[in-house]
């Protein structure tokens, strides 16, 4: 039987490869980085929504399964460079020069974080105490402490600025979508700060709070009810620095009070949006996959009804390469894509 190529070794890709391996389908998994696990592992996420587990707890078992399954061949530091042939008989070329014949392809090339320098008025790169939520995750997970980069001291006040690089036409048509994870992660990060540093006040600046489904209680109600995180309705329009007291000012309209506000903060956390990764755009070109004309995320075919079947027969798409999504859903999509790919090859599965 033909084998399957999985492109991308993030949550969606490893879930696909793991499922294929367990189904007895011979699988090649290519990952352009030097390790598996995608963005959550690469960027040292600290605690994951929604189950408050560590990435090693959630993603670790998947990585182990993939590495130990004899049906799965993992190629790190490798990318897809060309694809010829037809559905059921693709001839793929990889960046290491190897060529494979595969019957089906799963694309799971994921997302990249928005670069906050593109919103100059928020002062990222200019003021050291304006950081990203990724950097805050790193503070927790790698450095093990909360501090102001300007002086190494504990901040008295922390502000979260929601929707940076999301829901924003000022950046063009590409960043109109909502990031889906930002509100919930901020609720969690805010709670963690309050739990470990009860003297630090935390403020979340929002337009609306999107903690959908079962995320409402743990990541919106609990931060307020249990941890005393405060929410202010207004989008931060400008961040400035006052040399007089060495603190930042977050400028906004408090839309509930209807007054201009420039409030002092010691640490400001920008909640970053998600964009399709460069790898996603590249692979879309190589394989001729349909992309959303605005965001450039991959879009499924209209005919199949399924959201993981691409416009090209034999090619399946899973995870954040199609738009913002959480890790557990990325797993599920990877597994669904694996099942579709196996069915496409006519695999006879015996358990």
């Amino acid at each position, binding site marked *: 039987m033909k084998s399957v190529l999985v492109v991308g070794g993030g949550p969606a890709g490893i879930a696909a490869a793991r499922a294929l391996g367990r189904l007895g389908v011979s699988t090649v998994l290519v990952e352009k980085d030097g390790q598996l696990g995608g963005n959550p592992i690469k960027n040292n996420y600290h605690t994951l929504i929604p189950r408050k587990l560590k990435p090693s707890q959630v993603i670790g078992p998947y990585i182990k399964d993939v590495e130990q399954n004899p049906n799965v061949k993992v190629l790190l530091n490798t990318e897809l460079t060309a694809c010829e042939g037809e559905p059921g008989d693709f001839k793929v070329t990889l960046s290491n020069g190897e060529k494979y014949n595969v019957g089906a392809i799963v694309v799971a090339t994921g997302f990249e974080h928005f670069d906050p320098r593109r919103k100059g008025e928020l002062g990222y790169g200019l003021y050291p105490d304006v950081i990203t939520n990724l950097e805050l995750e790193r503070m927790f997970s790698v450095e093990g402490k909360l501090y102001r980069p300007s002086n190494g001291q504990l901040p008295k006040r922390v502000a979260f600025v929601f929707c940076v690089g999301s829901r924003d036409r*000022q950046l063009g048509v590409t960043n109109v979508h909502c990031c889906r994870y930002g509100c919930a992660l901020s609720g969690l990060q805010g709670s963690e700060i309050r739990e470990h540093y009860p003297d630090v006040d935390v403020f979340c600046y929002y337009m609306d709070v999107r903690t959908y489904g079962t995320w409402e209680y743990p990541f919106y109600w609990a931060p307020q009810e249990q941890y005393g995180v405060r929410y202010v309705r207004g*989008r931060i329009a400008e961040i400035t620095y006052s040399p007089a007291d060495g603190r930042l000012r977050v*400028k906004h*309209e408090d*839309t509930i009070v209807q007054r*201009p*506000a420039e409030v002092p903060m010691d640490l400001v956390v920008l909640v970053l949006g998600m964009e399709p990764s460069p790898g996603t755009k590249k692979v879309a070109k190589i394989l001729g996959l349909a992309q959303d004309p605005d965001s450039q995320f991959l879009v499924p075919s209209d005919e199949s009804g399924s959201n993981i079947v691409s416009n090209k027969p034999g090619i399946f798409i899973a995870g954040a390469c199609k738009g913002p999504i959480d890790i557990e859903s990325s797993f599920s999509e990877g597994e669904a894509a694996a099942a579709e790919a196996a069915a496409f090859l006519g695999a006879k599965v015996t358990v």
Partner: protein
Amino acid sequence: MAIHERSLVEPERILRKERLVVDGVDVSGDWNLIIMPRVINDYDVDFGKDVLSQPEGKTINQCYQCSYCTASCPVHNYWDERYNPRHFIYLARLGMIDELQKRADVMWRCVSCHKCTHRCPKGVLVEEVLKAILKVMAKRGIIEEYPSKKFDKFFTESVLEYGRIEDGELLFGWIEKQGYNVVKDPILKKPIPFVGETPEWLKDLVMKPIKSMNIGFLVLNAKHMLFHPKTKNWSKFKQVLRKVMQEEGALH
């Protein structure tokens, strides 16, 4: 009866009666004061539609109330917090006429710096939308024509006439409108800058930059002020432009 939180009750909602009879019962004395409720009873949705149909108002429905505009607005931040572009857009879309009316005294204060439009994450042309709101309010007699509008008209006329902005005529024509005695040349009947009465502030304003200006530029400016150059073939284009602007309702 005393009102305990006076600050929450606008004076126009307080009704005081010497004698009050409710359902045939005389309740004068302690019960002679009524506070009218603040309940919003309805929306005048046609107001929002009217704004949308103005050429400047086309983007009003793109607003999602984030308030980047208001937070960036110098008038809101440094002059009067009641000047609030986000809030005006909200009120206009729902058609809360009485609330707009309450703010009529501040609504024309926009200085057209366009910071709001530049930053709006939804692509609302905020400054233009506010002009559209004012236009509809004026049309309905809710607000008086705002002072800066008079200058806008004068400005538009000047551009329509010459296909460009002619500083001298624009400025001194405007000054004449303010009641100053301006000297005009006998042939073209256009004001000759700085020859007649000139307000002190203008002399100050002009003298400062003139000192550091390049002489060629000064001569060119003086020439333009006297001979009013027009854009080539402007008169034909002018007719077309006027017609289009009239049809679009953009000429007031």
